Structure formats: structure tokens, C-alpha cells
């Protein structure tokens, strides 16, 4: 890892993998990183865990912080929720998630 940059891999809804570089020193989260690469992540509420429009599945076995009550509550209003569902806005970009692999959850029902 150079200069506080990590790599994350995002599989889009067409099954295409995107390797994204993300800075660990800019207080970013996965929703914002995806948006900055213009991947189709809405992030309507701007990262307050209030809309579930950045729903993604975590595919790698990184040890992520537990889901907060707010995040669980929002996932209740999402669809296609699985055991590995997370809101991208609640996954902070830190050294610990270097190599993280996620897949964008399907949209629909909105």
C-alpha cells in the first residue's frame, strides 16, 4: 500500500469487476468511492444510513465493524437483503479493508 491508498474491488450489476483506488486519509466510505468512479450507486441520503440506496454485498472475508442499529434498520427497508448485506456508506475506507471485494445489490422496488 502506497501513500495511504488502498485497492477495493467492486462487481457491478452486469458482473464486471472494477478495481478502485481509495485514499484512507479522506474520511471516505464505499458509497462515496463508488460514486466518485461513477459506478451506479445512488447514495440518495448522502451517507446517513437513511435510504439503503448504497446496498452492497461483501464478498471477501474482511473483518468489518459490526452493523449499527441504524444500518440494520435501514436494511429492513431494502430488498434482496442477504447475510452479507451492508450499506456502502457505513463501510469506512481504512487500511484494514485493503483488497475488500463487494458486489452491488440489485436495484428494484424503489
Amino acid at each position, binding site marked *: 500500500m502506497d501513500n495511504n491508498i488502498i485497492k477495493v474491488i467492486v462487481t457491478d450489476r452486469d458482473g464486471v469487476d472494477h478495481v478502485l483506488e481509495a485514499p484512507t486519509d479522506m474520511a471516505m466510505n464505499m458509497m462515496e468511492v463508488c460514486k466518485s468512479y461513477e459506478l451506479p450507486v445512488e447514495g*440518495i*441520503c*448522502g451517507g*446517513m444510513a*437513511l*435510504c439503503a440506496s448504497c446496498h452492497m454485498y461483501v464478498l471477501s472475508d474482511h473483518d468489518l465493524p459490526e452493523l449499527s*442499529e441504524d444500518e*440494520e*434498520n435501514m*436494511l*429492513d*427497508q431494502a*430488498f*434482496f*437483503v442477504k447475510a452479507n448485506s451492508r450499506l456502502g456508506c457505513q463501510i469506512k475506507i481504512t487500511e484494514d479493508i485493503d483488497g475488500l471485494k463487494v458486489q452491488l445489490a*440489485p436495484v*428494484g*422496488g*424503489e
Partner: protein
Amino acid sequence: MVETDILIIGAGPVGLFTVFEAGLLKMRCHLVDSLGQAGGQLNEIYPKKPIYDIPGYPSILAGNLTENLLKQIEPFKPGFTLGERAEKLEKTEDNKFKLTTSKGTTICAPVVAIAGGLGCFEPRKPPIANIDQYEDCGIDYIIKDPEIYRGKKVVVAGGGDSALDWSIILADIADEVALVHRRTSFRGALDSVEKVMHLANQGKIKLITNAQVTGLAGEEHLTSVIIEEDGKENYHYHTDHFIPLFGLAPKLGPIGEWGLEIEDNAIVVNTFDYSTNIPGIYAIGDINTYPGKLKLILCGFHEGTLMVQSAFKHIYPDQKLSFKYTTVAGVNGFE
């Protein structure tokens, strides 16, 4: 019919502040919002959250910002039509616009300012393939009259307050109530959760947890839902009604059908005056898009301020507009 100078669609922070700037130029405003209260997202989504980037306020709660805005615009006596969705917009013979709301209210104005934010909040529909087919014949996203469920079998889905509260109410009315939720814990108010658990123990509500409804069946009217439950094969569950309660999500709605140029769910505007492709219609705040757009309240305030200058010239093409500072001229409200 209501008549005004500027019809503002959306009573969020940007719509509200525009009343002030329009008032300084002696133009009256009327606001329409699908929500039952002013404040838009601020009050609907995060009333108790602090905002830190309103100039002059190191920190202000979203709900308090709405309160302050309402106080600030009071001298200009805006009209409000709340709880009604802006449905149809037509051009009138005298070159004005006539808006009809979902409840049939009509408002007429020479200028329309769309400050619709994310759009209007509508119930989230579960992404079940044939769900549209059963709307009005077994599926309801909103409960208007609980009496229609008397003596019927009902399946409610969701884990929040509305799913819990309606399950409790329907337990007394319906013949059978099942509540389907994707996990075992519920996020609603503690006493609602306890009540549901109590009714479940008494056999008045059937709790189906770690489960979701993934399919629907029935000839014309719904007769069963297909439930996917952890550790079980998918199964049919007989019911007369399915009520999915997954909260509200914003949608552009009817605004998208008014002939405006739309790009990625936002209205394309000219940054000179935030005008749209239809003369007399402007779009301000989160609902518009232009190169460099930032969805910030403070940017929306700026957009509304510039927009009313152009609106004045649209309404009074022959009058000269003189710009005055409030510190010099004060705020002279309407009688």
C-alpha cells in the same frame, strides 16, 4: 382556484427561502408539497440531525432550520397546500400555468419554481415480479381503511413501526394476521414490539421471521404469497391481502411527465437563472442538475435567489428591477 405570482413545488428549505427572496421583489408565493408538513427532507428524514454548513450557524438541527425559515418568510404570507402531490401542469390561454394536485386543488401562476428535492415520497414496492398485477386486488402499500380487512386473511411485511402498529390493529379486525420480517428483532417502538410479541404468544399474530415474501399467486385476486424462510423450502401461504410496509422512498413522480428536459432523474437548468427548457418554469435545489452541481442547501438558497430575479422579468417584462440590500431597505412584508 388559488392565484399567485410564483407557484413553488416543494416546501423544503430551498422552496421556503425562495418565498423570502421573491417577497423582497414584491412577488407572492404559494407552496405545494406531497408531505403533510413543511421542511421536506429536513423534517421527513432527519429532523434531529445537526447541519454544519449553513453560513452563520456553526450547528443547527434540521428541524430548527425549517422553523427558522418559516419565521423568516412569515412577513411574505405564503400560501400552503400540503399533503397533496403536484400532478398535472397545463399552460393557460393567458400564458400562465395551472397546476392540479392529487386532491384536485388548482393553483394558477405565471411562474413555476420546482424545488422538489428528491421528488415525492412514495411507498417502497418490493421487487416481486408480478406485483403490479395484484395492486387493488390483494396488495396495498398504504392502509386507508382497516375495515376492508375484516374477516380476511392478511399478511403484513416489514420490521418498522408501521408494520408493527398495523399488525396490532389488524389482529383485532382480520381473521388472521401474519407478520413477515427478514430478521428476528424489530426496530419499532419498544411497547409496539412487546405488544406484537404478546399477540404472537396468544396466537393472534403469526410471526414469520428470518423470512421474506418473494412471490405472489392467484388467478385474479391474490390467494397466496410465496415465503422464503431461512432453513426451509419456499412455501405458499394462503392470504387474501398482502401489505408490504417498507417505508417511503423518493421518486421524481409526475414532474417527469411535464415535458421538462431530464437527466439522471434531475431537471436540466441554465445556470444563468436556473430556468428549464420551458419558459416560465424554473428548477432549484436538489432536483436540478448542471455542470458542477452540488446538492447542498446553501447552493439551493443561491439558486432560488438568482431565479426570482429572472422570474420578475418574466412576469413584468416592461418594469425595471432595482436591487436593494435588506440592511438598507429592511424587510417590508405584505399586508
